[in-house]
């Protein structure tokens, strides 16, 4: 065979290979396509993005200082009320503070607490889960024991008691909720790591002389990431609800810090007469929690469609 014939044959092979690539998109491309056509994910992420922007730029967007009170201008109607004005779009609360501004700063607090607490929970849960799942044996027995102890704890009652003893500051809330919600991460990552540790790619890594730490961080953790993101999203929703409930009961964030749970708690006294004061933060919590759940479900569908159902 001449060189020219050889070159032509190579070119043909290359062409047919490129035809094959076009027909079978990469996993990343497949994921992108699934994401673009997943309305739940798009809507969820869009809402979260809006809340995030509001939270980050609350200082610029909020029309008033959330702490500034004008006692002579208490319980002003929202803009749609009979005496409403655009100066206080959502009206004022019982101490004459702007409800919209407190709502915006409340979003900052809710997202900050839920994200950092979920992160703490993820670090604790994933560390335990991987350790138990990967090393097995006594370490796994200890991890399972710790998980069982944690599962036996009634989260809300423990949170109530500790918040009552220590008092409600943002740091306490974050640590408390972080340390009380890690079990889901541990259970999921332990079980997935157990399935993963006997697979060929881990065996190859071990045979190639990789250290356990390298295998955990380079081989196992990246494969768990999708699942962890899904749990973080669900956990954030749970944490937002617990924080709101604690603040509602007077054991969470201390007034006058703007917190959605506190806003509902304080508006409770006026629920028959100024229902919007309780409805506005209530709706905000509902929308954010729903959006986070939609986004979490969406990420799961997009990254691991086989897990749907």
């Amino acid at each position, binding site marked *: 065979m001449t060189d020219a014939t050889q070159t032509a044959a190579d070119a043909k092979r290359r062409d047919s290979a490129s035809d094959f690539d076009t027909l079978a998109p990469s996993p990343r491309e497949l994921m992108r396509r699934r994401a673009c056509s997943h309305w739940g994910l798009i809507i969820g992420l869009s809402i979260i993005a809006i809340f995030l922007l509001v939270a980050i730029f609350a200082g610029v967007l909020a029309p008033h200082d959330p702490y500034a009170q004008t*006692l002579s201008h208490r319980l002003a109607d929202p803009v749609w009320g009979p005496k409403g004005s655009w100066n206080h779009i959502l009206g004022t609360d*019982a101490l*004459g503070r702007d409800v919209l501004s407190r709502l915006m700063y409340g979003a900052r607090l809710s997202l900050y607490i839920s994200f950092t607490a979920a992160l703490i929970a993820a670090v604790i849960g994933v560390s335990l889960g991987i350790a138990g799942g990967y090393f097995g044996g006594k370490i796994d027995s200890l991890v399972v024991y710790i998980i069982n102890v944690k599962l036996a704890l009634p989260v809300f009652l423990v949170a109530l008691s500790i918040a009552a003893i220590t008092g409600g500051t943002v740091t306490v809330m974050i640590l408390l909720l972080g340390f009380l919600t890690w079990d889901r991460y541990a259970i999921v990552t332990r079980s997935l790591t157990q399935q993963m540790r006997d697979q060929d790619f881990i065996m190859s890594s071990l045979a190639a002389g990789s250290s356990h730490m390298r295998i955990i961080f380079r081989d196992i953790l990246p494969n768990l990431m999708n699942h962890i993101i899904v749990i973080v999203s669900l956990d954030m929703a749970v944490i937002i609800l617990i924080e709101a409930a604690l603040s509602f009961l007077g054991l969470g964030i201390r007034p*006058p810090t703007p917190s959605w749970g506190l806003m509902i708690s304080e508006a409770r*006294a006026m629920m028959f007469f100024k*229902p919007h004061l309780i409805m506005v933060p209530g709706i905000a919590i509902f929308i954010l929690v729903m959006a986070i759940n939609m986004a979490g479900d969406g990420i799961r569908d997009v990254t691991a469609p086989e897990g749907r159902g």
Partner: protein
Amino acid sequence: MKKTTKAFAALIAALAITGHAYAQKSKDALRIAFKDPISTTDIYIDPKPETSLTAEAIFDKLLTYLPSENAFKPMLATSWKQVSPVVLELQLRKGVKFHDGKPFTADDVVYTFNYIIDPKSKLRFGRNWGWIKSVEKTGDFSVRITSKRPTPFALARLATSTPIYPKHVHSKFEKRGEFGRKAPIGTGPYKAEFVDPSRGIKLVRYDGYVSPGPWSPKASIKTILIQPMPELQTQIAQLMTGGLDVILEAPKDQSEQLAQSPTVKSTAIKNTVYYYANFDAAGRSDQKALANRDVRRAIVMAINRQALADAVIAGGKLVELLDTPCTPSQVACKATVSPAKFDPKAAKALLAKAGYPNGFDLDITSIPGAHELAEAIAGQLRVIGIKAKVSRLTIGAYRKKQVAGKLQMLVSHYSSGGLPDASSVMAFYQAGPRDYWRDKQMQKFRNEGAGEMDEKKREAIYIKAFNHINEQALALPIATHPAVLIHSADVTLPSISSLFAGVEFNNIKWK
């Protein structure tokens, strides 16, 4: 949304109107809700504001204080005489019968006092009667009370939460605490038909009641039904739908909004309760800035008491700003120096002069009933740079914090225990664990006043004490805190009471 709001208002109005078609006037039965759990009618065992209402209805005291006349009036005692600084003699009313038909005599008085001064009784507020040395019967209808030391507020104490129990009933209970639940028999205008934690309390008019005078008439309403209902919103819903006739302790906004309904009224009642703020002048808490007089004065100057009285405190025109940590209706309650005037600019300058130009973090503790006021004050302090957070505590948690010396600033209310005498507040300055300020001058004033039987001289001592409080900004008297009751328009209530939690039931009438 306007339509929604209107529809909601219409629904409330409709509920109110239809509800009150079932109002209990026709049955001559008044229904009242109690927020706290109901366990007894015994005020010695359960010294709660709500218990004082039922105890007052079922039992009689020896005498009472009439705040409208600023005078003591006879009840079971017809007359009294201070024989010496430590001896008080009382003549008792004849012809009075307990609810079970047995006659009231001096034995019952002696028995009751021996019970309450006995340390073995372990009463929570037993110290209230700690000044009594002995009580002796000097006849079938006369007694002599001997005190351990001259006690200027002796009459005031006898007129406040000191009911007389029947010896023949109370002494039969091995566990004395069961008396107020199982057989609360007294000489008062109402007899208890049942006391049950789940059903509540049923009081029925005692037709054999001997009225000592117009200040304590025979009951007008035949039956009073007290229902346990811990949640205020539930109470409001019940009132609107005709399931309830009276709500006690209604906050400002609810009382004003509800009173707009034609079938509901709100009545403010003058009493001995007031709002105040305390500062950690002794510097025991984590915030040492408060040990500085200028800092405390700056805080006082940043608090707009008039705005708080207008916007946050319920009671309308009955809310009065105070210069004293007591109310004007109490004996010896006067000051000639007022708290520093509201002036946020000067307050900020004073704070800077004290070394805090950028303010500082402050923990304000509040107890139930003062949470909203504390939050409003926190908002006012932000104007001068003090970043205050409010710790909303239960009474129990507050006491622990107080005993531990961790209170930085307290916003609270004080009923004086209903005691119509300024000595009630001076007791807090007695050297000991309850003295939060540890101010030597105040301890001296307290000791001088406690033994002074001459009312004018005692008043002069207390004037110096209250002036000292204002000059040193040890505390800030804010305003009176009238009891505001929301009730069916069918009910008429008096505008003044010797009780601090509400009103004497025998003074309630149908319209």
